[in-house]
């Protein structure tokens, strides 16, 4: 005997992949293979890659979305009469979601009993994709089941990778997220939801709670952008709780601000005002009032005052905001543009059209230079300008601007977004003024559908638009009755 020693080496993922594929090819009967991989999105990539390497093999992929008790029963149900060459299963950890009790969960315990029955049901390799904590649970809770394995394949099991993914997903700014195409954002939400769930399922020792909270806030932000206010509200409240404990005041102020925005968009102005005030006070106490964050909170507070038609208070606040902006971020900044827009909107409401138009044009110019034209914020600016033209009776100019704004919306925020609904509703009002009731009706109906889903049936905006529908219908009836005699 040569007495060779084991040479420790890093695992090469390509080789792991190839060997895993080989293990599937080599098996002529039941065999059990574990793939240890902490990231669900990564698991899916591996499955895809494996299926590519096993192109001539019939692979049945099963995702266990819900909590189950008997893996074998579930496999029997899923397979029916199918006779695949291999079965891949992921999502098992959904059945024992809590790391500390996983080993005693019903699911893990029954795995062990049924270990001898798997080969009666399956005559092919069974590949289970699991995060580390789940594999540990099986190792401890279903030792016999674990012991009949023919291999465990490790793919980047390090918690740092989850964190890397987290920073990758949390690094995008709000405006970038808002600018995502509708489909892209839905996918992003799904990815972050999975990442978040998976991160929460890691053993506590491996969890970086700061990062986890950042992920939580990013998810809340995405919900907010998509108009899913209920989900956003819950997550922001958790985030605030976390920052109150960690005493991170700047992050706390930003979370308070974000929660206030959620309230504001749901029409809960009182709650929103309290939160914005708390947020701005926190910033003032920690970094002073010459700070962009302070300006942001004041601006938001001003917007709630606008909702309440407290215009003078709002204008005073916004003037203070613009002054701080000029001293901190400068004039060539989308945030400065946004604040100008807000001031202009108040002038519009007050009928001071000329002052408003100048400000809107200034804002559009800044946005064109900074974020570009294919952006929902730019669309918002167009829509604002168009509103004034509408009020001035410049209908054709207004209609063109609205249509341009809606086109940008469809390409960026999608057709289910509250902002898209606002722009649609603006255009419908224009049509109404032009007595194009049929066109107006189809738009307000669409707006109504969106608001039912985003704001709920009892929201004032939803009720407003319902009234719009009634008015259009009434006008159409009047028109019809006028037309009828001519027909005969």
């Amino acid at each position, binding site marked *: 005997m040569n007495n060779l020693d084991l040479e420790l080496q890093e695992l090469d993922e390509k080789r792991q992949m190839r060997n895993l594929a080989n293990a599937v090819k080599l098996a002529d009967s039941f065999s059990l293979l574990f793939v240890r991989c902490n990231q669900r999105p990564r698991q899916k990539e591996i499955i895809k890659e494996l299926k590519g390497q096993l192109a001539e093999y019939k692979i049945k992929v099963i995702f266990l979305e819900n909590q189950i008790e008997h893996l074998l029963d579930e496999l029997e149900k899923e397979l029916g009469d199918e006779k695949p060459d291999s079965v891949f299963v992921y999502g098992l950890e959904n059945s024992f979601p809590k790391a500390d009790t996983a080993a005693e969960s019903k699911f893990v315990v*029954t795995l062990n009993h049924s270990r001898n029955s798997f080969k009666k049901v399956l005559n092919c390799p069974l590949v289970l994709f699991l995060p580390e904590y789940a594999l540990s649970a099986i190792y401890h809770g279903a030792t016999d089941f674990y012991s009949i394995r023919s*291999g*465990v394949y490790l793919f980047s099991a390090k918690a740092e990778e989850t964190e890397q993914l987290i920073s990758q997903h949390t690094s995008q700014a709000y405006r970038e997220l808002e600018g995502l195409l509708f489909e892209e954002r839905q996918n992003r939400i799904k990815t972050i939801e999975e990442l978040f769930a998976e991160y929460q399922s890691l053993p506590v020792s491996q969890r970086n709670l700061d990062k986890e909270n950042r992920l939580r806030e990013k998810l809340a932000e995405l919900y907010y952008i998509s108009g899913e206010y209920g989900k956003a509200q819950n997550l922001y409240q958790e985030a605030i709780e976390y920052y109150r404990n960690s005493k991170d005041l700047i992050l706390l102020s930003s979370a308070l601000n974000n929660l206030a925005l959620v309230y504001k968009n749901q029409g809960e102005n009182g709650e929103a005002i309290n939160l914005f005030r708390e947020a701005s006070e926190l910033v003032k106490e920690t970094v002073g009032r010459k700070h962009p964050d302070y300006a942001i909170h004041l601006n938001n507070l001003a917007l709630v005052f606008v909702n309440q038609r407290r215009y003078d208070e709002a204008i005073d606040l916004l003037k203070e905001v613009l002054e701080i902006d000029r001293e901190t971020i400068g004039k060539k900044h989308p945030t400065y543009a946004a604040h100008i827009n807000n001031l202009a909107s108040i002038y519009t409401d007050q009928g001071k059209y000329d002052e408003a138009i100048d400000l809107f044009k200034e804002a559009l110019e800044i946005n064109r230079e900074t974020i570009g034209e294919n952006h929902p914020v730019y669309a918002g600016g167009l829509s604002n300008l168009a509103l004034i033209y509408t009020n001035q009776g410049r209908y054709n100019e207004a209609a063109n601007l609205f249509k341009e704004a809606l086109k940008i919306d469809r390409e960026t925020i999608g057709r289910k977004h509250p902002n898209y609904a606002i722009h649609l509703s603006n255009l419908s009002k224009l049509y109404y003024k032009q007595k194009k009731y049929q066109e107006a009706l189809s738009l307000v109906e669409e707006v109504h559908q969106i608001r039912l889903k985003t704001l709920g049936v009892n929201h004032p905006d939803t009720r407003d638009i319902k009234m719009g529908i009634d008015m259009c219908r009434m006008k159409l009836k009047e028109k019809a009755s006028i037309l009828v005699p001519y027909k005969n």
Partner: protein
Amino acid sequence: MDSQIAKIYGACNPDNPASKEFYYDCSAARGKNVFVEQIKDHIVLANASMHEFSDAGDYKCFLFTGHSGCGKSSELKRLVRELDSYSEESRFYPIFIDANEYLDKFDVTITDILLAIATETADILQKDESLKIKGGYFKKFTEKLGETVFADWEIEKIGVDLPYGFPKLDIKRLAKDDSARKLVRQALKDDTYLLLREINSLLVNARNEIQNLAAHGASQNYKDVVIILDNLEKIERFGDAEMGLESARKLFLNFSTQLTAIESHIIYTVPIDLMRSNDASVIGKLYDKSFVLPMVKVFQRDGETPFEIGVEAMTEILKLRLGGIERKAAFTDEALDLLIKYSGGHIRTFLLFAREACTDADALPITAENVNYAINSEYQNISPNFFPTYTWEVLAKLDLSSNQNIDVEPAQCVEVLEKLLLFEYINGDDETAGNQKPNDRNRQTPWYAVNPIYRELDQFKAAKEKLSNPPQENTEVE
């Protein structure tokens, strides 16, 4: 893909106990621990004396243990073949019961165990067409269960389909059905004694039949029945005891009366941590004899010097699995060396490594490089998070101690044994092992070594380092 690799991959499936064609007798490498022969001798002897000196049965109750995956079931299967085969002295009628099929290992009571024994014993006996056992054994019980638990089950009707016994499939179903199991226990809760008596009565009848088979044309009579209850060591929770060792204690200590009351030679498998715990001496008094199957010794106690007999045994095990393929054509010498060394003589690990090496190879022979990668793959998957932090210190202490008398919680010691972090070996009459006095006691004293793959872990190395260089005490300077 090389079809021969697929053949090796299939043959090295560690899932099943070795069948006759794959069985290799490693007893010389397990410290001359000829378990099968010893048990058979004990049984033969007991039977001989029984008939000469008394009417009452002198039935032996044995305990059998060893590391999970070290070859216990393979040895028991071989025992079954040996007992049942013709020999000059005698043959025995084996009843092999796999406890896994009947028990929910997280929820077991003595009733469940007796029910498993009764069901399987009756089933085997009545399926044997050479036996003509009559009498409605267990009828009282099945009637009782039929009224309550099995009322709406589609059960095999005892008395219609079967002359006696329990509906086997339905009893097996209890392993998966908590609520039915509770009902059965409730229905039979006062019947443990009756159940035992009925089992024994069936065994008396069976004995009469098997001892007179020759009169009905069979070539040889059986001397007696031997019941083997395999996988009983897997029980995690017995009654309301704590999980693990506590549960094993409760079953094998508190219920030894019931376990030994079956009037037949019987072998139970027990967990290795129980046999190496402080309770071992008490258990020794309660049962007739216990056997521990150690690892195949592949190296000496220094962990370095190979033990040729063990190395040869592992090689033979692999050769049997290779079928027609020449060993050197399948695995290079270096590949085989690595496989053996890092298996530590644990057969399931050995086959698992061989199997994983197959997936890394493009063509035969499988090289040391392939094996190295396979072991690495397993090694990287050992997550230190899987084990409590004291584990590494316990292992390091054992590794550094010359007499392996170490100062830690016995519970921690037996835990590492049970989790396969630590392997048990016996020198037997290995002359090269440095047995100072080649007496039986020395030869059969077990020694322990850390599972070779865990020796590579940083946590283990660090613990060892720390223990070998204790930090110097700082003397205060004024």
